[in-house]
């Protein structure tokens, strides 16, 4: 068959991902971000590496050295995870690494809880779902995984989720936000219904919406809607709410393209 000469390939296509790959390996990049504290460093690193056993070992050592188990959640586990998130955002590591790190972090949290009777202050609860009539749930799964990875408690209502179940869950769980995913133009209208029913009940909370079918113009049409393009936007929206409150206008100002 015909073939291209090696030197001719670049004129036809550019592997921008290869061209762009940072000089630094992911490990080196992570190394630069770990906290320097001798007790915290190994925990953060174990989180990055997704090594659950090393996480527990590190936590044990830190607690033995007098650190508070609950404080360690924020000061070591979350810090390690934020290294992971940052590297993911920068395109240096990929989703499966994040998921493995998140698993390690969750184990770490469980372990910390067993070391004390105090209850950790949760970062916040979030209800996730896929629109009624829609079975496409991988995007939602990624969203849920990344939220968990960032320390949020996720109530996952699954796919093809009836409008009323979302309303009930919100009433019951009082989350700091709801997320909705829709991949089909035929299903995304359920978001409007959810919006209307929530408002009818006097509930005002941010409703972050995304998924292949959904776009910003559509989400802007109902009062509670905040549009996110990538799964990681869900985390950014949640963080923004924690830091700046849940005013929809502000959220749109921050996250919508204008």
């Amino acid at each position, binding site marked *: *068959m*015909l*073939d*291209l000469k*090696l030197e001719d*390939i670049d004129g*036809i*296509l550019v*592997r*921008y*991902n*290869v061209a*762009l*790959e940072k000089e630094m*390996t*992911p490990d080196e990049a992570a190394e630069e971000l770990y906290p320097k504290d001798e007790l915290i460093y190994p925990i953060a690193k174990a989180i990055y590496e997704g090594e659950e056993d090393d996480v527990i070992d590190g936590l044990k050592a830190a607690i033995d050295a007098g650190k508070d188990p609950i404080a360690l959640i924020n000061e070591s586990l979350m810090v390690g995870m934020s290294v992971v998130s940052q590297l*993911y955002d920068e*395109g240096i*590591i*990929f*989703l*499966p690494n994040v*998921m*493995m790190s998140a698993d390690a972090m969750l184990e770490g949290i469980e372990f910390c809880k067993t070391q004390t009777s105090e209850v950790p202050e949760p970062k916040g609860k979030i209800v996730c779902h896929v629109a009624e*009539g829609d*079975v496409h*749930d*991988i995007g939602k*799964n*990624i969203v849920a*995984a990344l939220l968990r990875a960032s320390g949020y408690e996720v109530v996952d209502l*699954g*796919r*093809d*989720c009836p409008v009323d179940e979302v309303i009930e869950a919100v009433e019951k769980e009082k989350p700091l936000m709801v997320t909705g995913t829709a991949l089909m*133009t*035929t299903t995304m*209208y359920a978001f409007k219904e959810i919006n209307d029913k929530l408002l009818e009940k006097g509930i005002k909370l941010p409703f972050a919406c995304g998924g292949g079918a959904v776009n910003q113009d559509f989400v802007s049409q109902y009062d509670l809607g905040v549009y996110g393009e990538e*799964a990681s936007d869900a985390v950014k929206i949640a963080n923004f709410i924690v830091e700046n409150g849940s005013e929809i206008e502000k959220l749109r100002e921050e996250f919508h393209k204008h």
Partner: protein
Amino acid sequence: MVKKYTSMAYANADDMLFGNSKFPVKAGLGLEIGAGYTTPELNYAPRPQAGKSKEKLIKEYERITTDAMARMVQIGAPSIVLETEHVEQMTNNPEWGGAVAHAQKTIMEEYHDEYGIKCALRHTVGDIREDRDYLKLTGDKFDLLMESFEQVAKNGADLLSVESMGGKEVFDYSILRNDTAGILFGIGVLGSMDMETVWSGVADIAKKTGTVAAGDTDCAQANTAMFIAGGLLDKNLAHTIAIVARAISAGRSLCAYEAGATGPGKDCGYENTIIKSISGVPIAQEGKTSTCAHSDVMGNLTMQCCDLWSNESVEYHGEFGGTSVQCWSESLAYDCSLMNVALKTGKAKDLRDMFTLSDKYRDPQGYVLAYDNAYRVGEAIAKDGNDNYLRAKNAAVECCNIVEEGVASGKLKLTRFEINALTKVKEDLAALTDDSDKFMSDCLTKYKEEVAVFLPENYGL
């Protein structure tokens, strides 16, 4: 009843070519697929509001059909296939699907009678075999699926297809965890088992109704992997893993033809070149002219051996140049015209190679699906064709080898991340048993435990 492929339909990769298949398929009104020419296959989605009632839906499809046929005649296209991918209501209410097929076919017959344009109608029913949380592959839902096939076949559909979902629950769990065994089990084992059941059923109906059992696609798994992997800069899944899932899927989608289907395979089966090399059936493909539906990194390459050339799907709406279905069918028709000229001028193999080279080094997925390499994956499958597990594993191993050779040649450049992911898959594969029964029982134990929604009874297990 199910006769497995254990040899190749083509003696050499170089014998494979667009517009030509070993076993052409006659269908519809004067059309022959894979018999020396390519034909555009247009797919479309009704607008959201159109699903409100049966009447509205039928009108929508009538307009779509008329628009498309009219445009084909205006530009002088000799042939067209229309593909209607069911919205859920059309499969769940078999008489809806039948009524739509009837309405469309009536219009197509008018055009055929007036202009002599060759045409056929494909209906792709929805795989509605699931509850909210679980797959329900057998029983009532299976019967409903078959009834839907029967209704569309009796009412005008010429080509019968479905995008079946067997194995998806295990796959979904595994793909985000880089779990090689789970990917192999979901697609290669569970998927293949379900395919055999579904397609034996469809083949019977086709025989009974004088229609064509056309083919399936691993949309639910290999395409999902491809879409999660995304473009060059996405970072949710290594493209090297996506292509391993694709290689595995070839064995799975091949099961349709082993159960009696004859092609043309479904457009979005990017595994179809591999399947063609083994089975010789005609195939539909999509790529650079299905950007309306999705983006991929092998827009031209997929034309290399296609018999039908599709836009995957476009929502019906207006554009400056007419309605969306008119625009896309016209673009497809010109693509086909180019291929058909190549066939008539003796330049087809050159054109094929140009299609392939456009994307062979763009991405590991294109590299493996380039027809020369696809043929090798085909051989790996045929070698152990009688064993669904082994052939899937062979395909995955061969896929890894091919990518590694590409890297070694210096022409396929991978990121470190992609290379690492590949290394891991290769190690995982090497660690797997060669004993299908053992693999099955290991996986059953493992995934019953880890995947809450996995119900072995779906597969008669």
